[in-house]
């Protein structure tokens, strides 16, 4: 029950998002009501769980997803999660309402609400995740959906740049977070928060702790716009104000501090944490407050103020004391409330006055007193004025800076002084917000005469400011319970006793508050001094411009790198690939001496015949290279090399290979000769010398590598793994030719795959060449004007065919026991058939050999599969073979194995493949396109 409730809360926004796109087809407001209904429904579903969570229960629900990767859909609802769910859904509801009034009438709201709901779903996922990897997944969902939301006004370049910047910064942080979480999960031994939170000691003691901390903090700081990753947040003000109010005050930027709170029991409580988190937080707190003062744009001021307040929360977590953590959670609540109301108010002012530039407005209190009063209350909370909620958490902050245990002596004054400095700046920019907008003279060039907004539009501000007051006046009643539960989740244990009260009596923190208020007002009074100083001392490009410069430079660099790597040329790719392989090989060989290649085995005596054969092989290979631009002679040299390779197989006791190589050699040469008819007879020399040298070096190094590898292998002893195959060949496979038994029996399934590949290659060729019309290459006689068929050859070949077929049958039958078998027999048959084509011409042969080779391929594969399936009839696995002796009359007794049926399939496929390839190529001469005219350059 609990589990399904949690799942409903999480899924509601994601299911609602696409529905928004349907709803917008109706009335404009339908989507708004739909989105509001989704938010309200999720809140309602959550409600029954609230008492249990407030009582300290941690609700966990789990569904297996990818258990072998440690990735479950596991949800967790504790005090912290509940607090954030409340903020996400509650403020989300208000923003949905507000956006319906704020966005222009011509906008169809479906897209906006769909993105907003997707974002809310992502945020809910982050705060409800029990599994850390799931948390990262939803973290990325928020990055992506916020990218879309910031780019809502995508026609504006400013919005696109801002969205890109936010995505680059928060997305980059997300990657760091992923790495950090993966490490954390490895160290803690689990990705489940319940287990990770309990193993803080293990994690903090691990040598990887600084790395984990760094990566996780990178994720948190980028999301929460901490210095120096803050620049995207002010730029994101290009988004519509409802988005800013939602994402950039209450939710998205709070995800970073949420992460700090979530992992506080695991990562905090070390010196490193205190220095980094506290230091970055303090710097951001003051830096953001200082810059907020300098912004003329209303939303810009609020954006920098948000950065500053997030810095304050970060600083509180960094302080590391238990009460500081409580204060941090309290300030998260307070800031979300007053900042959302301020953003919404700023949006109202923009909407009604037509500008957000504070230099162009003033005296608005006269036109919109109600909104003005609300905004002033919220700004007071931002400044930390007593009786308002911001005052309470700020006072807790001041109290925590006094007498921090890590700082002693004179240094103990440093932190409170710094806190007061931040306080002074906060008061100053809050004063500027109130004074310049609502008081002073009314400028003459205000774009519109402002007036109060419609009551529904102002309702969110009414609600939020009421909360500001209520929390400020009755803190314990309003937030005591949830704050206690959330703090318990953050501290993962006992919460120090605290009482929230409006008034704590006269004490040091109150004095600090008073000093900050007075100092802030004075500072505001003399602000023109600061402005002048800032203008002359720090003229620098805006952060957006700087980001764009870096972005453009990175883009340009990527384009250049691509252009250098990707020459859009296959030989260039190949050279790059070979070079890389060589580098890898050399890297593996680094430090090795050439002499170490030689193993303990003797080199063996080189006999004269082998030496001569190798010499011929070298001549063949070398001649192929030297003459490669003249295809015909090159082909002859190639066949010489192939012949020597066949003889080499024979020399080293592999007659099967020798037979196969020899017959493949014959059909390959015929195939290439047929193809040559359509290829230039003399390729132009087109590689420059530098290119040829580069290729020669690559080839030389590659050859050296192969030679070294071969030599190292040949001189090392080895234990053959073929003993089993040899000893089982006769009793198990019924054949003495072990190679053939391996092919058709022991590794029969493998061979099945191979003949399938062979058949596919032949069919591929068939498809490529079907109906292809090519002119013969220059210098080649076109069909019909060639010489007549040689009579002698034709006369000789006809009687030879039956003889050759008998030989191939013999080779096939004996293959199981002596060199031979389906592959070789197939090749011999194909050569015999091919000779008929060569001798008699294609028409002659076709008229007599009416074989459809495509069907032959199918038949071969069918026979092979059928043989394999046959063993099923006898209840044996696929391709199990059996064998027995056959004693036919008149003939010698011979052994017959069922694997021969399989070999027959191989035979048919080989014949079919070779003949299909050769006849397709040969048939091209019958439909040649017109020969190129003399003088026309050959492609």
């Amino acid at each position, binding site marked *: 029950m609990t589990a399904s409730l949690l799942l409903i809360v999480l899924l509601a926004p994601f299911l609602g998002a696409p529905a928004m796109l349907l709803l917008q087809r109706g009335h404009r407001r339908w989507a708004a009501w739909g989105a509001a209904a989704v938010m309200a429904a999720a809140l309602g579903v959550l409600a029954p769980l609230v008492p249990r969570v407030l009582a300290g229960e941690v609700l966990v629900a789990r569904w297996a997803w990818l258990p072998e990767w440690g990735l479950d859909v596991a949800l967790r609802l504790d005090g912290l999660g509940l607090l954030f769910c409340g903020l996400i859904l509650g403020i989300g509801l208000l923003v949905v309402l507000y956006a319906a009034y704020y966005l222009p009438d011509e906008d169809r709201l479906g897209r906006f609400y769909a993105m907003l709901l997707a974002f809310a779903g992502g945020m809910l996922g982050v705060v409800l995740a029990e599994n850390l990897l799931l948390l990262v997944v939803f973290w990325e969902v928020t990055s992506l959906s916020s990218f879309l939301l910031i780019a809502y006004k995508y026609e504006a370049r400013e919005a696109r740049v801002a969205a890109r910047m936010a995505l680059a910064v928060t997305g980059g942080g997300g990657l760091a977070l992923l790495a950090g979480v993966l490490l954390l999960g490895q160290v803690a031994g689990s990705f489940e928060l319940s287990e990770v939170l309990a193993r803080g000691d293990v994690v903090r003691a691990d040598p990887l702790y600084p790395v984990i901390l760094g990566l996780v903090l990178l994720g948190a700081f980028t999301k929460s716009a901490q210095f120096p990753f803050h620049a995207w947040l002010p730029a994101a003000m290009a988004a519509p104000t409802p988005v800013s109010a939602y994402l950039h005050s209450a939710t998205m930027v709070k995800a970073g501090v949420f992460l700090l709170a979530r992992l506080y029991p695991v990562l905090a409580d070390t010196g490193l944490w205190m220095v980094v988190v506290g230091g970055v937080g303090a710097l951001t707190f003051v830096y953001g407050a200082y810059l907020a003062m300098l912004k003329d744009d209303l939303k810009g001021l609020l954006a920098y103020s948000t950065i500053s307040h997030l810095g304050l929360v970060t600083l509180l977590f960094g302080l590391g004391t238990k009460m500081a953590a409580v204060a941090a959670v309290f300030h998260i609540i307070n800031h979300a409330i007053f900042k959302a109301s301020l953003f919404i108010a700023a949006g109202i002012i923009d909407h009604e006055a037509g500008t957000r530039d504070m230099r162009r407005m003033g005296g608005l209190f006269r036109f919109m007193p109600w909104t003005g009063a609300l905004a002033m209350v919220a700004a007071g909370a931002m400044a930390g004025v007593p009786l308002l909620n911001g005052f309470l958490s700020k006072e807790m902050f001041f109290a925590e800076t006094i007498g921090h245990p890590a700082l002693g002596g004179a240094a103990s004054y440093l932190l409170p002084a710094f806190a007061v400095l931040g306080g002074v700046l906060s008061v100053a920019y809050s004063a500027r917000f109130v004074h310049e907008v609502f008081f002073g003279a009314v400028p003459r060039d205000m774009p519109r005469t402002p007036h109060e907004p419609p009551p529904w539009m102002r309702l969110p501000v009414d609600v939020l400011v009421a909360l500001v007051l209520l929390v400020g006046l009755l803190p314990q009643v309003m937030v005591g319970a949830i704050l206690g539960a959330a703090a318990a989740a953050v501290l993962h244990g006992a919460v120090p006793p605290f009482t929230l009260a409006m008034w704590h009596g006269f004490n040091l923190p109150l004095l600090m508050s008073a000093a900050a208020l007075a100092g802030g007002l004075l500072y505001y009074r003399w602000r023109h001094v600061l402005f002048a100083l800032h203008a002359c001392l720090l003229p620098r490009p805006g952060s957006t411009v700087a980001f764009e410069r870096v972005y453009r430079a990175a883009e340009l660099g990527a384009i250049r790198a691509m252009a250098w790597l990707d*020459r859009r040329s296959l*030989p260039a790719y190949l050279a790059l690939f070979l070079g890389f392989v060589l580098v890898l090989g050399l890297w593996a060989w680094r430090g090795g001496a050439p002499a170490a290649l030689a193993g303990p*085995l003797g080199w*063996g005596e*080189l006999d004269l015949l082998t030496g001569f054969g190798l010499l011929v*092989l*070298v001549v063949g*290979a*070398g001649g*192929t290279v030297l003459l*490669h631009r003249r295809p015909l002679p*090159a082909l002859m040299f190639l066949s010489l090399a*192939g012949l020597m*390779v066949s003889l080499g197989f024979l020399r*080293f*006791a*592999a007659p099967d*290979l020798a037979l*196969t190589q020899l017959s493949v050699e014959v*059909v*390959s040469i015929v195939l*290439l000769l047929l193809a*040559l008819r*359509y*290829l230039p007879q003399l*390729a132009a020399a087109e*590689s*420059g010398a530098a*290119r040829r040298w580069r290729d020669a070096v690559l*080839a030389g190094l590659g*050859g050296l590598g*192969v*030679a070294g590898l*071969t*030599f190292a*292998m*040949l001189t090392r002893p*080895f234990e*053959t793994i073929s003993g089993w*195959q*040899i*000893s089982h*060949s*006769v009793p198990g496979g019924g054949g003495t*030719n*072990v*190679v053939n038994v391996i092919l058709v029996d022991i590794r029969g399934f493998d*061979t099945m795959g191979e003949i399938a590949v*062979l058949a596919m290659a032949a069919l591929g*060729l068939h498809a490529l*060449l079907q109906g*292809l019309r*090519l002119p013969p290459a220059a210098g080649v006689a076109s069909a019909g004007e060639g010489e007549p068929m040689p009579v002698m050859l034709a006369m000789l070949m006809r009687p030879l065919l039956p003889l050759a077929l008998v030989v191939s049958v013999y080779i096939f039958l004996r293959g199981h*026991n002596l*060199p031979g078998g389906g*592959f070789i027999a197939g*090749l011999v048959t194909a050569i015999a058939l091919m000779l008929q084509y060569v001798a008699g011409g294609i028409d002659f042969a076709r008229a007599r050999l009416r074989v459809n080779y495509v069907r032959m391929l199918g038949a071969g594969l069918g026979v092979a599969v059928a043989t394999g399936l046959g063993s099923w009839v006898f209840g044996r696995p696929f391709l199990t073979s059996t064998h027995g002796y056959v004693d036919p009359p008149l003939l010698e007794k011979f052994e017959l194995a069922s694997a021969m049926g399989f070999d027959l399939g191989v035979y048919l496929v080989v014949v079919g493949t070779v003949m299909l390839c050769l006849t397709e*190529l040969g048939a*091209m001469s019958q439909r040649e396109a017109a020969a190129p005219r003399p003088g026309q350059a050959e*492609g």
Partner: protein
Amino acid sequence: MALVISMAVGLLAACGIYLLLRPRIFSVILGLTLLSYAVNALIFLGGRLGATAAPLALPGARGLSDPLPQALVLTAIVIGFGMTAYLVALALRARAETGTDHVDGADGPEGER
């Protein structure tokens, strides 16, 4: 003998690689054939040189060569034919479509493509 044979195999590979990097399709086909000779020989030599008899499991047979690499190479040789045939078909088709036998489908303007 081991050294000379290794050098021969290396030379086959070197010639194959050099031709593979040429810009004309027919050279590439030749190179691929040479390279497959080298690779087949390398796998085959995994059974070493010392054998004196073909791998026939006859009674009393001694010094058999290793049948396993031979079985692997045998199918590799036949599949090599299938690959060559397919490549040839591809080359002819490409020539019909692009009008050139250059592997990049177009003659480079500076002849260096």
